[in-house]
Structures are given as C-alpha cells and as structure tokens.
C-alpha cells in the first residue's frame, strides 16, 4: 500500500534521513521506532508531504506521492494524527470531529461516524460540548485519533501518540489503535515507546541517525538483543 524507497531528507545541508526503504502492505500494522532525533518524525513529514524530500520516492497504491500536498492526500484515504496531537483548542470536541470530516459531504454518514468515534472513545462523548483545550492530554490524543478517523482513512499515520501521556492512558490509546486496525485500517505507527509499539504491531523498523538499522517481524525485534539493550532498557 505504501512504498518508500531511497527517501532522503535534508535540512539545509544536514541529512536528517539518509536514504531509507520502508513498506507497509494493506491491512498491516507497522511501526517505526527509534530514539529522539533518529529522524522518525522527519520521515513521517516527508511521507505526508509536509516537507519535500531531497531524493527518493514515496508511492501510495502505486502512485507517486512526492509533490502531492498534505491537504490533497486526505481524499486519497490517508489520514495523519500529527505530532503533539494538533487538535483545535478553541473548538468543542464535536466541532473538532466535524473538521475531521471537512472533505466529506454526506451529512448522515458523518453523523454515523461521529457516533462510532464516541463508541470507540466513550470519554469523548461525555465531553462533546467541551473545548479541545480543556481536555486532558489523553483525551486530546483520543480526539486527535477520532478526528483522523472521521475522514474514513484506509491508511492511518500516527506520530508518537504516547507522547506525554500516563502509562495507563498509553495502554488505552494503543488498545484503540489495535481496534482500529482490526476494522481494516492500515496503520503506520511512529513511536518512541518501542516495547508497546512492537507488542501491537506485526512488523517494525528501527531507525537510528537517519538510517534504518533493523527491520524484522515484531516478535523477532522484541527478542533481538540489540533492540532490547537500546530501546527496552535491558542492561548490557
């Protein structure tokens, strides 16, 4: 579904992503893990068209995507949950979800999807007329994911959904991501929390200083001594 080859991104001479290959097949759950500054978010930005890659190609269902602006991708079935959640703080939960369906015209379908998001996150239903800015971090993350689901995506890109959340909340968010995947949405999850990400995903890529150093099935990665040392806090 998503194929990345030789992707290279540089910020004014500094290579943040040094030619990576990555693939996500339809129906899969794939994670991209790595430490701070490894180039994960930059990779995602290049995948979504927020920044222009210096070289390489990004193909979605066979079509070249470099040069296609972010706002045009939503119509192609790609949704992004941006880093730091990016909810609209002064709009209510309901209005936020409405914005998620900006590109749709089917009033009834939108209504129905709104209820589905509320079913997925009952907490949001309780807070539907509260403004986004007054929600807790976890609730905001729920809102960001729910809002992305409002466009009925086939591919969902998540940028560090666990960032700044309490462990219990992270658990809950990840369960929901798994439930979304079970509904047939393909997922690419960019995460720092390697353990949790590998536990829910089928495959994983490990990124370090702009390069992909490992790529394997999630269980194998979880068992890999190098990964355990570097990301799972195991003593060497």
């Amino acid at each position, binding site marked *: 579904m998503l194929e990345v080859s030789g992707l290279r991104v540089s910020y004014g001479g500094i290579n943040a992503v040094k030619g990576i290959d990555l693939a996500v097949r339809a129906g899969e759950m794939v994670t991209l893990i790595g430490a701070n500054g490894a180039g994960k978010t930059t990779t995602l930005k290049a995948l979504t068209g927020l920044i222009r890659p210096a070289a390489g190609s990004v193909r979605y269902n066979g079509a070249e995507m470099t040069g296609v*602006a972010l*706002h045009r991708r939503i119509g192609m079935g790609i949704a992004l949950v941006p880093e730091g959640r*990016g909810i609209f703080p*002064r709009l209510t939960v309901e209005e936020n979800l409405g*914005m998620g369906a*900006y590109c749709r015209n089917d009033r009834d379908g939108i209504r129905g999807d709104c209820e589905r998001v509320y079913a997925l996150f009952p907490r949001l239903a309780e807070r539907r007329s509260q*403004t986004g800015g*007054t929600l807790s971090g976890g609730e905001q993350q729920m809102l960001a994911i729910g809002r992305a689901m409002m466009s009925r995506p086939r591919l969902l890109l998540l940028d560090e959904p666990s960032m700044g959340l309490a462990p219990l909340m992270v658990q809950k968010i990840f369960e929901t991501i798994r439930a979304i995947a079970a509904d047939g949405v393909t997922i690419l999850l960019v995460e720092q929390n390697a353990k949790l990400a590998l536990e829910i995903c089928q495959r994983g890529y490990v990124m370090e200083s702009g390069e992909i150093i490992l790529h394997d099935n999630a269980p194998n990665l979880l068992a890999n001594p190098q990964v355990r040392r570097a990301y799972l806090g195991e003593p060497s």
Partner: protein
Amino acid sequence: MNLTDKFKANPALLWSGVALIACALAVLPFVLAMAGTTWVRVTNLAILFTLLALGLNIVVGFAGLLDLGYIAFYGVGAYTYALLASPQFNIHLPFWIILPIGALAACVFGVLLGAPTLKLRGDYLAIVTLGFGEIVRIFFNNLSQPVNITNGPQGISRIDPFSIGGFSFNQSDIIFGLNFSGPVKYYYLLLLVLIMVIVINLRLEDSRIGRAWQAIREDEVAAQAMGINTTRVKLLAFAMGASFGGVAGGMFAAIQGFISPESFVLVESVMVLSMVVLGGMGNIWGVIVGALLLSFVPELLRHTVEPLQRSLFGRSLIDPEVVRMLLFGLALMLMMLFRPAGLWPSKVRKRELTEE
C-alpha cells in the same frame, strides 16, 4: 446564546424586532438632518468605517491573520474610483462599472500582499502588512512624476458623485414631499450596501470556507491534515477582505468628492483594527458595534468638549483632539482589563478567555 434561543422559539418576536430596527434606520437620516446635515455626513462615514471593519474582520477575526495595512485596500478602491470618474484623466465612467473594478483592483492587491506572506504568522505578518500599507500610501503620494497619475499630495478633486440617469446623489430632490439631500441619499445607498455586506459575512461565517478559516486560525498543520488547502483559503481571506475595502474606498471617494494620500495613513489602519478588536474579533455584530462607537464618540466629543470648556473656563484649555486620544487610550485600557474579548465577543473567543 439565550437571545437566539428566545428568537428561535418565537419568530414573531424576531421579525417585529427586525421591523422596528428597519423603521428606525429608515427614519434616522431625517431625525439627524434636524440636528444638522453634518450629522448625516458623520453617519455616512460611520457606515463606511463599519464596512471597512467588516472587511478587516474577515482577515483578522475569521482567518486570524493580523493585518496592519488594511487601509491600503480602501485607498486602492478610492483611487480607482477617483481616476475613472474625475477630470484627472477626463474619464467619467458610471459608478456601477467602477465599483466592481475597484473591488477587483483591491482584490488583486490583497493577493499581492497575501502571496508572499503565506508562511508568516503573528508579529511578522503584522510588520509586513504594515509596510505594505505604507508602500501603497507612498505610491499615491509620489505617482505624480514622471507621469502624473495620482496628482501627488494635492490629491484628486472634483470626483464625480454617484448618479443614475438624471438622478444625482449630491443634489437635493423632493420626493413624496420629503427633502432628500445628497447625504440622505448616500445614507440609504450605504445602508443597502452595509446590509448586503452583513448578509455576505453571515453566510461566509457558516460556510465551508468559514470553517476552513476557523481551522487555520486554530492550527495550520492540523488544518492541512483535515484536507484544507491552507494556501488557497488564506489568499481567499486576503482577497475578500480587500475587495470589501475596495468597495468602501470607491464610495468614500464619491461621497467626499476629493481624496488625497492623507486619508490612507497608518493611523486609519490602526483605527479600523481597533474597531474590530474593541467590538469583538470574529463576531459580526460586535464589529459593527465597535465601528459605530469609534466613529460616533469622537464626533460627539468634538462637538461637546470645546463648548463645555468655554462655558466652564471661558476659553478652550485642551484641544479636542487631545481629549479624544486620551479617552480612546483609556477606553482601550479599560477594555483589555474588563472585557478582553471585546464588547460583544464571538462564541469561540469568549470560550478561550473564560474556560482556560
């Protein structure tokens, strides 16, 4: 809002209210004319400024883009009208042709300002727009050489008034036994345009474009992720705001019969912005209240401060202009302390300042 709920429950109440306001607005110029034609002129200028404030509200209030050079579009509209309907080039086109041209010209300038500033936000955008406003004014001031286009600082005079057939807007006519003086005629025309602009604004606010503006005002990256073409939507805000300014400018030129670069200085931009902020950014009704207050109160002061001083002290101690700025500053300070979201804030702005 409780008031809107009440109106929804009882539409008769709403319509009788509307009818009452309509009657009051229809009679107003004749009442004002009794106090002196000056007051009709003051009202006309107030309506012009309300038009400007509503145009700026699209850029600042709806889309959240701070524009400190808005008066430039007013100037472009005014000069377009003046050049196409005055002895300057001996062109005398009818107003219903020039006003759309003026709106279009201002719109082009709006895009000219918008395009290079797409990536700027907040303070940086404010600085560039401020510079833009000044550049336009300096052009008006200096485009008298080598080819005389704007007539420089002397400005353009003897601009044609509006006229349809033989019906001219700067002569008095007796209609139904009532004396319709020039300013009274303009009043009705301005009122008509104002109502149109209000309706357009209300429709815009509820439209898809309105929602897109709301989204980019809140978070631009997220707005893009929602599928909103932020580039186009921002340019649209600049273009629409500018064309309203252009229409207002054209009418200003016709009503005054004379324009010069002095009418389009930075202070005027600041004044229009103050109207928007004081009234309540983003709320159409608030902006109208702000514009009317800031147009009428200074005039009232002008007519009361000096006579009052004369009767108290026998002579004028403080210049009315000084008193005006003093009170204006005081009012802004009090506003920021007690009603930071404006006199009549929009729902969203009110939320921001009360809940968080």
